[in-house]
């Protein structure tokens, strides 16, 4: 028994992504139609050429019919998947395995969320009927417990840590300002970020991801067929997933300074892809910056920084757009926005643009390195799911 992965067996040959904004004039159906049509066009295929579909939506609708009805698919297999905020990545993972298995020639993954029809602030999950003893905290509150624990464990001054996580927000807004699809397209000053009203713990409004509507899609084929569709396919090097068992919530040894599910997921992903020196082999990382402190800790769990040092690397600008390893060059959840079911595919869309040299002058990064990493999590510290993909432009 082992996690073998499917390195170089399938490729992404087309992608689409809507703007991520508050689409007051577009419904869920409109969003999936737009992302899907972009994707068909990108791959140069007709709708009927795609053999099977996976739809990721956390709360947008139930069953594959949520996709097949708006797209008017003709007797196609469609599976709706949900895996917290990693839902969009999960859709792609299933589509990739289906093609790798030989069951289908072409599969499409679509992720979508219509978050802004609820009328509430933040993201809202509707739990199944229950005994009333579960937590009712916001995600912001659960993640806010990381910052003081991190500062204490590594002896980081609270103000310095505050500066570092504000830099994460500053960086992601800087990048998002250069992305026409992003929800927030303005740079934001460090001062504004640090003085923003508190939502939970020490996390202010500018430490939290944007909440947006949006959809994104990808078409997958066998690697050997990739050049039928595009000259610049992205080969799937690794797809790793870990569903935590919730032990961090009940085990007193968990200290809120790391996300063990993600550290384990990263080990598996790097093994699948044969990556031994992530910082120097990976060209860019799209990571799940649901909160600024989350991105900071992810730099350590993904092995980009040694434990207890990510705050320094962040402040040194190592993950900035022109830094040694650009992280979230598209603005991330922070400024691109977070339509839950779409976000995982949106991350891959940025990898698609950057590795193909199509991100535009304002934010195109160097493509000397040919690998991109996307990291998508769901849940909370202590009880989390983690997805990592590694994508590359070269076989082998």
């Amino acid at each position, binding site marked *: 028994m082992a996690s073998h992965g499917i390195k170089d067996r399938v490729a992404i040959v087309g992608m689409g992504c809507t703007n991520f904004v508050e689409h007051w004039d577009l419904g869920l159906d409109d969003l999936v139609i737009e992302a899907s049509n972009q994707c068909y066009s990108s791959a140069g295929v007709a709708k009927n050429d795609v053999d099977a579909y996976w739809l990721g939506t956390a709360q947008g609708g139930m069953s594959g019919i949520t996709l097949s009805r708006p797209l008017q698919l003709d007797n196609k297999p469609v599976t709706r998947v949900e895996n917290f905020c990693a839902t969009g990545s999960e859709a792609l993972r299933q589509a990739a395995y289906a093609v790798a298995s030989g069951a289908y020639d072409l599969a499409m993954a679509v992720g979508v969320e219509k978050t802004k029809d*609820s*009328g*509430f*602030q*933040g993201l*809202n999950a*509707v*739990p199944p*009927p*229950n*005994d*009333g*003893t579960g*937590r*009712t*905290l*916001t995600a*912001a*509150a*659960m993640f*806010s*417990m990381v910052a*003081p*624990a991190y500062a*204490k464990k590594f002896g980081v001054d609270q103000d310095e840590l505050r500066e570092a996580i504000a830099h994460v927000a500053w960086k992601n807004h800087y990048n998002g300002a250069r992305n026409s699809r992003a929800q927030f397209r303005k740079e934001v000053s460090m001062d504004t970020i640090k003085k923003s009203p*508190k*939502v*939970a*713990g020490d996390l202010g409004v500018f430490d939290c991801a944007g909440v947006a509507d949006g959809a994104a899609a990808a078409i997958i084929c066998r690697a050997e067929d990739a050049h039928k569709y595009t000259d610049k396919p992205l080969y799937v090097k690794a797809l790793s997933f870990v569903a935590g*068992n919730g*032990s961090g*919530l*009940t*085990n*007193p040894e*968990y200290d*809120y300074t790391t996300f063990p599910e993600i550290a384990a997921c990263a080990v598996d992903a790097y093994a699948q892809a044969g990556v031994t020196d992530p910082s120097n082999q990976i060209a860019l990382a799209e990571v799940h910056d649901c909160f600024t402190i989350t991105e900071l800790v992810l730099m350590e769990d993904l092995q980009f920084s040694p434990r207890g040092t990510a705050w320094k690397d962040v402040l040194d600008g190592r993950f900035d757009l022109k830094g040694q390893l650009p992280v979230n060059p598209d603005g991330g959840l922070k400024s691109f926005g977070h339509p839950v079911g779409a976000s995982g595919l949106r991350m891959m869309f940025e990898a698609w643009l950057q590795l193909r040299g199509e991100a535009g002058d304002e934010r195109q990064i160097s493509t000397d390195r040919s690998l991109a990493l996307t990291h998508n999590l769901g849940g909370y510290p*202590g009880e989390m799911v983690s997805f990592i993909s590694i994508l590359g432009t070269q076989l082998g």
Partner: protein
Amino acid sequence: MQGIITWGTYLPYRRLDKSSIAPFVGQGGGKGTRTVASFDEDPTTMAVEAARSALRGRKISLQQLLFSTVSPTYADKTNATVIHAALRLNDSVTALDLGASVRSAVGGLMMAARSNVTTLVTSADIRTGLAGSAEEANGGDAGAAFVIGDSSSAPVAAEILAVTSATEEFIDRWRSPGSVRTKVWDEKFSEVTYTPLAKAAWKQALADAKVSTEDVAMITVASPHARVASSIAAKLGVAKVVGDVVPTIGNSGAAHPGLLLASLLESSEANQVVALVSLTDGADVIILRTTEHLRAARPTPSFDEQVNGGAPLSYGKFLSWRGMMSIEPPRRPEPQRVSATAAARSEKWKYGFIGSRDKTTGSVHLPPLRVSVDGQRTDDMEDAPMADVLGTIATFTIDRLAYSPSPPIVFAVVDFDGGGRLPVELCDIDIEEVKIGRRVRMTFRRLFTVDDIPNYFWKATLVRDN
């Protein structure tokens, strides 16, 4: 001979300074303070806390649980069964509510005294009244609990020598069910009506107890009317009257006679004759003789310690907690109603705060798990009752966005002594008090109510030196 085996009282943490009422309302208030139940407390939770105090560290085989309140959370459905579940009592213990009048509470004590079963008698109340009313200023919120049985079940701290009543129908205080406003006729009318009733019941009680007034060391008189209580206490001729607590904690309706009885017992020495007189729709008298077991039965915290404790609450919070003033909530979804079936399946966890302990490794799981954390064994667990286990705050946060009946939510990850961790809401706390390393204990609360279903569960509260 039945007697009081043990007792406990519960005063909520918050105190309203009555001088804050008039500047806001333009009338009412006065000097002194009153107790205020938190937004997440109700008579049921306060009765649970009083009973926990009474039962802590004791093994008493109960046969019956009685609960009295004038402000019950459920109608139709029994409230005492919630208390029964939270106290983890045996299924064979009968659990009953006594009706919606103040007199029912002392009635519960009298019924238990006249029975031959070991009874946990609980009472609790929340007194609100209209803004600016005397009821608002002079009311209070509290709970009280007594275990009454004979010496075969446990050592008796105070033998019950006599239980007498004088009953009469007259309209001096009344209220329609569900109304917040208690109405009164005329205190002088009450005084002249209660006086002969009290004298009659007192005389009969002395005769039944075979004691004289001079033999009675101390008396306490409970009445919703302060004037009636002090006047009749003087008329009965007992040298010492105890229980002048209304200016500090208010008159807590159904709980008030129990609080005064507890105060009486905690003021007594061994082998003294003492008496409770309760004046509501008649006069009820209980005469007791304390025993050498009195001191050992004294609960922690004591009634006096609680009277002297507490922390201030603004009048605005008081009004919002009692539903007298609506406050803008966070723009977040309100919680769903509790699933009755799911709650029934998790009764031990939800009401009793019982986790599971791995028989092989000893690790404690909150909520209970069926499969060991190493994934190797299924149902290799035993019950881990955690309600009385103290814990320490490992980390914490303040959630300003999440839905709460009284935002913001103060929330902590709590590590329990001897193992087990639970991320849980804190209560009765000011934001600046929460710190890593502070000690907490668990308390039974009503988290919220949806579709008329109160969601009872446990929260953590700071361990404070009284």
